[in-house]
């Protein structure tokens, strides 16, 4: 284990070929059927293996091609919307307690509570058991001057005198996790951090992870096992790093607020997932939850809570509610369409004139994350993020201005939009095979975004790649169209289209409209707002009233199941076209 992170899009299933390594010295397990099929003969001779298939049988010397290295992921940590007004969940009191003596031998906690009663308006104070365990030593080490944290009368824990209560907001995505450390008294953001969701090793999309969980641990509660463990470990580590970076202490972290899609929150909380994975796809709970942070193995303030925002229905979960909260779609004055494009794309439409909100989720697949696309990759250094076709070639810009090694989602969208504009693909998304600008590749005609001369990495788009993007955009457009039909909204009524999430924030809107990923509405303005789900999580973290508002959003937003929508098939077909 040299600590080198390898790329993977398929979750170690021998499908994506992105974790390729070259064996130099040492013994490895025999070639698997998958590798024999996936790798070419000359590659096998050179010692190419897939890291997900080959096991070391001795110490090894291996070469990791540049393309196989997992790179820094461009994470969108900062939402662009306004910070929330603070309506604190946690009260904190700096207190001084008189040291006990033989004449005054009251218990430690009783002394603290007597002191607190004079300070808080809450009548019924009661200690969390873990705060009692913490108290005696901290009282003495801090010489009877401490800060105590209280939530609705419950004493959660203590810290050194004068230390403010902190909270952590977490956007638990299928691919990425983002976390922020926030001062709960001021609402000020102290630090932010991003990481890949470690559950990726058990599957790239939520269904594969649910299947892993069901097959390996059963369908009962408390059986998410490794998946829960992996993500809890990561969150615990992220919180530690945030606190370290800010120079604060873990005891101050008195509240955690988590948002994620329904599958992510279920796997984190060890809720049963069998019923979620099969029709009619129901959650164990949609209502908001307040649980002890220690129940999900977080070592923060001993009695701290973790608030999980409510979900809406099906796979439309807390992250979607947080997105609505963060963008304020629930309070817009005009007709608004909100989209968070990802492996699952959540869409919401609001009709203020009819006091109506409705959401849906569509399986757009991981193509925009670079998976199932021949030269696709995540948005990391070396990924082509924008493409413009010229008379005799293609101009590309890569992330970090590094040599190009593949296309990320925004680059793919640009490329397809340009190919369509230049007549290299028709409105069915088929290559114009008579064009001299296409090359013959291993899988038929292809367009080379990067020629691959002089030792450059060749980057090409094949017909199959276009197919994948068409399937993705067909699902998204059908989702939008179905929601509009269901709410009887016509294109000219829509005043605003809000694109949330990292992907939606980096794409070139004009190109996305040209290639038909996004609809064109005559009266709409398009707004890219960044990580709105994260913004919503932060708002709910620091404010009781925002938590109530989130529950209202969840309660009042209708859920549309797309597969049963009449005419979905035709909408899907229309959505796949380039026009």
């Amino acid at each position, binding site marked *: 284990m040299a600590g080198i992170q390898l790329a993977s899009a398929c979750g170690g299933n*021998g*499908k994506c070929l992105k974790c390729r390594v070259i064996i130099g010295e040492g013994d490895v397990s025999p070639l698997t059927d*998958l590798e024999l*099929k996936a790798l070419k003969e000359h590659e096998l001779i050179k010692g190419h293996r897939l890291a997900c298939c080959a096991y070391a049988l001795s110490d090894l010397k291996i070469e990791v091609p540049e393309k196989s290295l997992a790179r820094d992921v461009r994470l969108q940590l900062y939402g662009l919307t306004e910070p929330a007004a603070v309506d604190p969940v946690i009260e904190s009191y700096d207190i001084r307690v008189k040291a006990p003596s033989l004449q005054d031998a009251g218990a430690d906690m009783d002394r603290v509570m007597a002191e607190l009663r004079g300070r808080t308006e809450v009548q019924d104070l009661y200690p969390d058991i873990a705060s009692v365990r913490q108290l005696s030593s901290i009282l003495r080490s801090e010489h009877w001057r401490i800060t105590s944290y209280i939530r609705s009368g419950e004493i959660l824990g203590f810290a050194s005198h004068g230390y403010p209560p902190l909270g952590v907001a977490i956007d638990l995505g299928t691919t990425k996790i983002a976390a922020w450390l926030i001062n709960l008294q001021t609402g000020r953001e102290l630090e932010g951090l991003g990481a890949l969701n470690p559950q990726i090793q058990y*599957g790239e*999309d939520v*269904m*594969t992870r*649910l*299947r892993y969980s*069901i*097959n390996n641990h059963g369908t009962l509660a408390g059986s998410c096992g490794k998946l829960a463990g992996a993500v809890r470990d990561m969150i615990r580590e992220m919180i530690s790093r945030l606190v370290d970076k800010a120079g604060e202490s873990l005891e101050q972290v008195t509240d955690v607020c988590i948002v994620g899609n329904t599958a992510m929150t279920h796997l984190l909380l060890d809720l049963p997932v069998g019923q979620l*994975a*099969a*029709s009619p796809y129901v959650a164990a709970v949609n209502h908001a939850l307040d649980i002890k942070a220690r129940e999900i193995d977080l070592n923060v303030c001993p009695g701290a809570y973790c608030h999980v925002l409510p979900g809406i229905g099906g796979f439309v979960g807390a992250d979607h509610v947080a997105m609505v909260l963060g963008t304020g779609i629930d309070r817009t004055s005009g007709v608004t369409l909100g989209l968070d494009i990802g492996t699952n794309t959540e869409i919401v439409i609001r009709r203020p004139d009819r006091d109506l909100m409705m959401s849906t989720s569509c*399986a757009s697949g991981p193509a925009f994350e670079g998976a199932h696309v021949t030269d696709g990759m995540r948005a990391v250094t070396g990924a082509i993020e924008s493409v413009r076709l010229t008379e005799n070639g293609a101009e590309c810009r890569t992330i970090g201005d590094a040599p190009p090694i593949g296309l990320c989602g925004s680059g793919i969208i640009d490329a397809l939009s340009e190919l369509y504009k230049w007549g290299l693909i028709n409105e*069915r*998304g*088929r290559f114009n095979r008579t064009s001299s600008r296409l090359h013959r590749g291993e899988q*038929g005609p292809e367009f080379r975004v990067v020629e691959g001369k002089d030792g450059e990495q060749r980057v090409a788009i094949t*017909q199959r790649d276009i*197919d994948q993007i*068409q*399937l993705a955009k*067909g699902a998204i457009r059908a989702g939008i169209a179905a929601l509009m039909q269901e709410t009887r909204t016509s294109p000219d009524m829509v005043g605003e289209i809000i694109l949330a999430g990292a992907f939606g924030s980096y794409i070139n809107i004009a190109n996305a409209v040209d290639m038909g990923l996004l609809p064109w509405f005559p009266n709409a303005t398009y707004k890219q707002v960044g990580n709105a789900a994260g913004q919503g999580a932060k708002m709910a973290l620091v404010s009781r009233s925002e938590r109530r508002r989130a529950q209202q959003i969840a309660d009042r937003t209708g859920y549309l199941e797309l*597969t*049963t929508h009449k005419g979905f*098939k*035709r909408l*899907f*077909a*229309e959505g*796949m*076209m380039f026009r």
Partner: protein
Amino acid sequence: MASELANLLADLKETEATDKVKGDLEKGADPMGILAEAREGMKIVGERFGNGDYFIPDLIYSGEILKEIARLVEPHIKQKDDQGQKLGKVIIGTVAGDIHDIGKDLVVLMLDISGFEVYDLGVDVPVQNFVDKIRSTGAGVVGLSGFLTLAFDAMKETVDAIKAAGLRDNVKIMIGGGQIDDEVKRYTGADAFGKDAMEAVTLARSWISQP
């Protein structure tokens, strides 16, 4: 040379195709002849899909047009004859837990226009329904569709149930949908997998023509 209706359908000209059918019916054209022309058009669609000129949306459109033509023609058919000899019986369904029907419907459509007698069991089909249908129809081919990864397990359960019912040797089983490949085929115990609706037809043909 294909007929005018066949070409309209093949070119996915929905309004023109249905107008043509309406006109022909008014003129007293033979409804069975119209259906034969439509089938010819679908054959062209299949060819275009096969050589890469058409893609999934085109199959969906052609299916919708065909459905509309069948609806128009239906009342004019006096007695249902069997339109000649069917190639063989095929049972198709989306497996338990999964409700995706687009791929499944395309397979049903292409098998149907290729001359198979197709029993469409719908979506979220309980394992037992497949077993019962094999018994009652004596079909020799079963197609299991599934879009979700979790459908792999339902497919395996279905194949196992067919085996347990002692019917495994009577049927060939193909699977398709979503992210299915050779590995999944092996896992489920199916005989073959198809990447698209045309491959389903090829598989069914190869099995049914076998003695």
